[in-house]
């Protein structure tokens, strides 16, 4: 226990070192998540557009209209 808190203290500078590492981690992970999500959204949108145009499997909008 003693050694862990001593390690985290980083010679009295833990208050600067750890926040810096946390900020870097948060920003890098957030950028990765945002980039992946926008890729997924774009791919899904492209797929619905393509299917709608080909008429092979109708997208949600046309299905709803057919049901009415």
């Amino acid at each position, binding site marked *: 226990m003693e050694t862990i808190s001593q390690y985290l203290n980083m010679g009295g500078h833990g208050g600067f070192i750890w*926040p810096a590492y946390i900020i870097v981690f948060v920003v890098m992970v957030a950028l990765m998540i945002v980039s992946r999500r926008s890729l997924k959204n774009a791919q899904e949108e492209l797929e619905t557009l393509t299917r709608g145009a080909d008429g092979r499997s109708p997208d949600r909008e046309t299905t709803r209209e057919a049901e009415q």
Partner: protein
Amino acid sequence: MFHRFANPTRFLKLADVIQPWIAGATLVLLGAGLYFGLFASPPDYQQGETVRLMYIHVPSAWMAMFCYSALAGSCAVALIWKHPLADLAARATAPIGAAFTFLALVTGSLWGKPMWGTWWVWDARLTSMLVLLFLYLGYIALNNAFDDPQRGSKSSAILALVGFVNVPIIKFSVDWWNTLHQPASVVKMGGPSIHADILLPLLLMAAAFTTYYLWVLLIRIRTEVALGKIRARQMQKAQTGYKG
């Protein structure tokens, strides 16, 4: 030869193959870098444990400048040869570079307070780095400011090229003027003035940040390719008339 890789379809095939390798390399390098950086390396004789801030601060700053050079290079290729992929690469790089610049500024501030005694000073190095962040933000804003994406990428590419003068200014600011920031330790004449035990985690983290950049870059370029196709389809639909 250049044209072969500038083809988005061919690029997507290549990206599919290399992306898992890049992702794996990033995780391995990051793990090793953090292990050596936070556990298996000695403190510095002057700065003590705060030297560990270097392992994230310096790679962030390097990547900030590397991304800007890549951005300016892509913009030049897009302006001169009008390669479709160069424009997408520029647009995909800008947010990553802006993130690294932000991180370099924040971690530098957190390092400056305990070591220099101040969060921020307006010396040539720190100020030119802040200018770099504004250049990135300006590029992103200008790119999205036009309804016509082609005009947007043209004007923002010119801004990116004009802003490139800032990159050598950042690099050499510490040699040309008196600054609070110390001169270069690694990339300089006569070899690095960093002991191998401290240099190892620094280089590992720099490699990890580089592969992280490539990883996110691939994802973002794929997004840009998909968005381009969506735009093309929507235009096609609008022209043929949408029969719902």
